[in-house]
């Protein structure tokens, strides 16, 4: 088997800052309510002429630059997204065009918020077998385009962003992806969905009137699933690798809600000092959440070379995924 190296990371968030105070002017909510229940203070929304692939391409450019890898050398593109530019072509194909990539294997991976980490595990297999040399794994979502602003409990949660990681296959050195875990509980699909717009319920005047083209979520059920599955994944990955909590330098949880992260951390009894947060400023950026947080923490020097980083995510499906990497 060949080894997987993390060569670069990148991130992008749109310029428009949407504060809790602003949201309070268009929905029945307030800053205190949002902050105590979610930890979120602001989020970013795409501009009218911007879309998911634009953010994905920006994050990818940053990762490619950091890695020193040219567009011609990329032979795999995986975009984790649940807010693609359109049903088809895939956002990954649009990204290939925007970055002028030669002819890579390119596809979207729809695993809700878990898309990036699912993509990381998928790309890792291509690289270890040697089938592909340089993989661009992206998590990008513009959930603001699918928010129902009459649903006050859900519309405050999401922000738009993208994050990317460039991984290469090499003969030498050690593999930087130490372990992974992922899975699905399909029975929980009903708790987080966008009911219309697919083959089951195509767009119609009725689906529009019923607000079925937006995020529908049962927050309580997702909270329970998220806390329990995050703990399960952490324990499973520590067992797989023989590492202990103390060996982990940074915990990167899915940035869905500070209350979920805190509930999991409190139950496991480790220090919050090792947990990296970006949700206060950027909200839940869905698939972008993990790679965006990794890249930001890399840029500001929080994550350093050789650090052990554990990431866990959960999302629509219900899906879950985790990985431990050596930076």
């Amino acid at each position, binding site marked *: 088997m060949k080894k997987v190296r993390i060569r670069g990371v990148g991130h992008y968030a749109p310029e428009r800052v949407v504060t809790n105070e602003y949201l309070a002017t268009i929905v029945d909510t307030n800053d205190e309510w949002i902050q105590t*229940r979610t930890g979120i203070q602001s989020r970013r929304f795409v501009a009218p002429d911007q879309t998911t692939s634009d953010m994905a391409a920006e994050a990818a450019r940053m990762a490619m630059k950091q890695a020193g890898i040219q567009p011609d050398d990329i032979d795999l593109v995986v975009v984790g997204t649940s807010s693609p530019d359109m049903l088809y072509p895939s956002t990954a194909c649009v990204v290939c065009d925007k970055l002028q990539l030669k002819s890579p294997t390119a596809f979207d991976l729809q695993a809700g918020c878990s898309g990036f980490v699912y993509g990381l595990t998928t790309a890792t297999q291509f690289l270890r077998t040697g089938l592909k040399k340089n993989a661009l794994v992206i998590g990008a979502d513009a959930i603001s385009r699918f928010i129902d602003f009459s649903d006050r409990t859900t519309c405050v949660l999401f922000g738009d962003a993208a994050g990317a990681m460039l991984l290469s296959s090499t003969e030498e050195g050690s593999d930087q992806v130490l372990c992974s875990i992922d899975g699905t509980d399909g029975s929980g699909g009903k708790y987080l969905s966008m009911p219309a717009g697919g083959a089951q319920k195509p767009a119609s005047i009725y689906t529009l009137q019923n607000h079925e083209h937006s995020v529908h979520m049962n*927050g309580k*059920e997702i*909270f*329970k699933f998220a*806390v*329990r599955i995050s703990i399960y994944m952490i324990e499973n990955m520590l067992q797989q690798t023989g590492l202990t909590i103390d060996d982990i330098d940074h915990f990167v949880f899915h940035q869905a809600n500070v209350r979920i992260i805190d509930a999991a951390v409190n139950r496991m009894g480790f220090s919050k000092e090792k947990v990296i947060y970006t949700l206060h400023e950027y909200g839940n950026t869905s698939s972008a959440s993990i790679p965006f947080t990794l890249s930001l923490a890399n840029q500001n020097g929080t994550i350093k070379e050789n650090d052990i980083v554990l990431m866990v995510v959960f999302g629509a499906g219900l899906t879950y995924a985790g990985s431990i990497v050596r930076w």
Partner: protein
Amino acid sequence: MTREEVLQKVIPVISDKLGIDEDQVVGDAHFINDLGADSLGLVDITMALEEEFGLEIPDEDAGKLETVNSMIDYIIKAA
């Protein structure tokens, strides 16, 4: 399990999850009005009690358990 035994297990869980003193957790206390819980705080308590007593409290039942006493009654019946 006696009511007293359940109460002794329930008090520290509620106190820990809501960050309040144990003596505030009295039988007729209302989770939201008296103990300052919000919806996620209630889910957190429900989860912890499910684990403590090895049972499942469905969301439609949990929504009706508004006081410490009603929670204890439910646990005694279900456990």
